[in-house]
């Protein structure tokens, strides 16, 4: 059995890494890219190991074509991932913003509210040293704040 020529290698690789369709997944594109990249490397090794081969120029051209195809397929795969994840990215960004907004609000308004109420209710209870009164004051502050939230 004779060794495959550069053309043989390239033809099989190009056939295997035909342009993906719209239905292809990013995984499939990545796989096609791997096929093209590997074939390109095989051709590179062929050139390097057979400097006297008659089809070196053809091998180089095909090698570069496959190398470029591997790059393009990987780019397409990432773009597809980006398109598929676009909505999810937007949702997560929104969630992050909501948390940030909440933390700003809680510090600016309700922190002051909680403290003010706590101080008013509890200083009186602490004044008389009644633990039961203190607990009742805590509950009333809690209730008042819950009402304020509504």
């Amino acid at each position, binding site marked *: 059995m004779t060794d495959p020529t550069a053309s043989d290698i390239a033809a099989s690789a190009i056939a295997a890494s035909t342009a993906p369709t719209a239905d292809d997944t990013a995984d499939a594109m990545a796989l096609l890219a791997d096929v093209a990249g590997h074939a390109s490397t095989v051709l590179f090794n062929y050139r390097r190991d057979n400097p006297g081969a008659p089809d070196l120029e053809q091998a180089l051209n095909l090698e570069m074509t496959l190398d470029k195809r591997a790059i393009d397929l990987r780019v397409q795969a990432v773009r597809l991932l980006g398109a598929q994840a676009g909505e999810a990215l937007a949702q997560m960004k929104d969630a992050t913003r909501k948390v940030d907004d909440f933390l700003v609000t809680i510090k600016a308004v309700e922190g002051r509210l909680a403290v003010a109420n706590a101080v008013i209710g509890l200083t009186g209870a602490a004044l008389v040293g009644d633990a039961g009164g203190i607990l009742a004051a805590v509950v009333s502050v809690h209730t008042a704040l819950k009402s304020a*939230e509504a």
Partner: protein
Amino acid sequence: MSNRLRARWAPAAIALLLGGCALQMQPVADFGAAANHLATTYKPFASGIAASCEQRERYIALGNAGAFDDAVAERAAAVRCAPLKEAGATAALFGQALADYASALATVAGTKATVFDSDIKGVSGAAAKLETKGGTAIFDSRKLGAATKIARAAAAIVMQEKLQTLTRATLQDNADALAVVVDAMKTYADKIYAGQLADTRELMAGELRRLVAASNAPTQGDVEARLPWRYAQAAARADIEANELEARRVRDFARAADALLAAHADLIANFDKLGGARRLELVSAFVNQVKALNDDAAAL
């Protein structure tokens, strides 16, 4: 209930409430911190694909006939791989989204101390103003201390409830989005980036093999002429080792990403169970996987 009994019960009840809240939010904080770190681990992958492509193109240029100028080869490689640089910027968005989300969770879970410390200062300030009136002490220090503690507890209870509500909603509402983004990160890392690394590695391995063959000096007189090939072996071997390490990081990342999703799902499922052991186990497993990533990087 007698006054004495109430006096004993009140601080204990508040401590229990505060303790319970802190325990429940701790796994969320741990999860957020670890997920944020995982996003940091992913970050170099985004730019790595173009870098690996350029490295491959430079090695190809070394093996081409004709004139060779290293600087020219480098520029040509950058041009050829430029589309991957743009694609890497897209891939980076996934990691940024995870980092932001994880930071938000860690913040909302760990906000207790920060927010309450700020509130406590307010209480202390207000109480300090009441401490003396016309130079006469109104409260003794023990009672003032108790009032401050209870005020702190009151604020903590209210804040904690709100934070927990937000945390629960954040976890639940974003589970699907997180899965999509993390899967995208995995596909990018494990399929696309890993494929580029493998292509580059295979090419470099061929070149190293040829360098070793070219380094053979049949006689002592041949050694001098072979020295460039012999020296070049070290650089090629280092390039291959760095590539292999990066490929290992990618595989570890993919495993940790699976653990992240499992931990996130378990946080949701067990959010109401204070101190749920299973929840802690899965979060711990995830945190440990992320720590292992760190250890691997440290071993460089």
